[in-house]
């Protein structure tokens, strides 16, 4: 299980990386916005995408839409971890096909819960 963490702040990437490691996910890669994340995704080695919304260059919602529009990438589960909390934005993310939405500041428990829920759903769909 290889996870791509996309956030423009290295501190946040590090926090998420550490929390994922505690959950047993040690294989992670990082990118600082959608533009740098897409080429990594297109290598076909990423199984799970955790992304921020508000980033310079390509934002998280744009990345999500790009992933869903790509025939090879569209099934990758995407978890949004972001400070964006407007009702319309969350609806937009849901419509774009997000698998989970965690608002910052978040707790380790919240992140764990959302990730487990995503995997449960994937497993039951198999």
């Amino acid at each position, binding site marked *: 299980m290889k996870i791509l963490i996309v956030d423009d702040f290295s501190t946040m990437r590090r926090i998420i990386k550490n929390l994922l490691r505690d959950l047993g996910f040690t294989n992670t890669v990082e990118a600082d916005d959608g533009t740098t994340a897409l080429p990594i995704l297109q290598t076909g080695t990423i199984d799970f995408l955790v992304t921020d919304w508000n980033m310079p260059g390509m*934002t998280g919602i744009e990345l999500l839409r790009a992933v869903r529009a790509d025939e090879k990438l569209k099934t990758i589960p995407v978890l949004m971890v972001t400070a964006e909390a407007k009702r319309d934005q969350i609806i937009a993310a849901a419509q774009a096909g997000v698998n989970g939405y965690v*608002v910052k500041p978040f707790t380790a428990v919240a992140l764990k819960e959302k990730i487990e829920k995503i995997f449960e759903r994937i497993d039951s769909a198999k």
Partner: protein
Amino acid sequence: MSSENESKLGEFESVVKDGAVDLLNKIEVGDFSGAIKVIQELSDARHKSFYNEVGCLTRSLHDAIRDFQIDSVDMMVKSGVSDVEAGSRITDASDRLNYVIEMTSSAANKTMDMVDSSVPVASELQSQARELHKDWNRLIQRDLTPQEFRDLYKRIDAFLKYTDESATTLHNNLNTILLEQGYQDLTGQVITRVNELIRDVEERLVHLVSVAGRVDSISGIEHESENKERDDDRGHGPAINKNDNPEVLNNQDEVDDLLSSLGF
């Protein structure tokens, strides 16, 4: 100064009103050359007021620029200032905010370094304690061979030493984390000062806008008010005063509720 300017504008308005009455009267009695003269006078008055107001706007702008020491090539040439190093209050504020970013980032990273170095220590203590506990229980149940007993003896000695060292390491790490939180004091002070500047700038901008508004009213310029909302796609950053905005959700529970209402 502004009340003086307002009275000037009032003066112009009364000139326009009086002129209009005068103009109508002249047209009614058929004094067309007199009417043209009134129009000319009105036009002159408008020009005069216009120049006055533009002058006033320029002065206010100049004052604002001077107060904020904004680097202006023109101003530096005029006043013969060659010392670009001095910088403006705005540049200074921007530097200060960059300092806040650096401080918070460094504190966050140092704290995470300490966590990274503490977690393995805690894990090692835990696993050693569990191992010892197993054999300790066997000892209680008199289930150990003499060789195992001698072994346990040494292991307990080593464990106690390791516990002591580990506690010192953890203690030091926790202290480092504690001290790192000092960034809050320093960045708080910087942000308070930048906040003061922003309030100051806003006050002056409001003044400039009111002066510029008088120029607009005389010249008849109308601005299309562009009330562009920031695009949701580009993001808004963390919401401040969430409770005042019904469009912004307050916490994860509300987000979860919204998503589940959408069938998630």
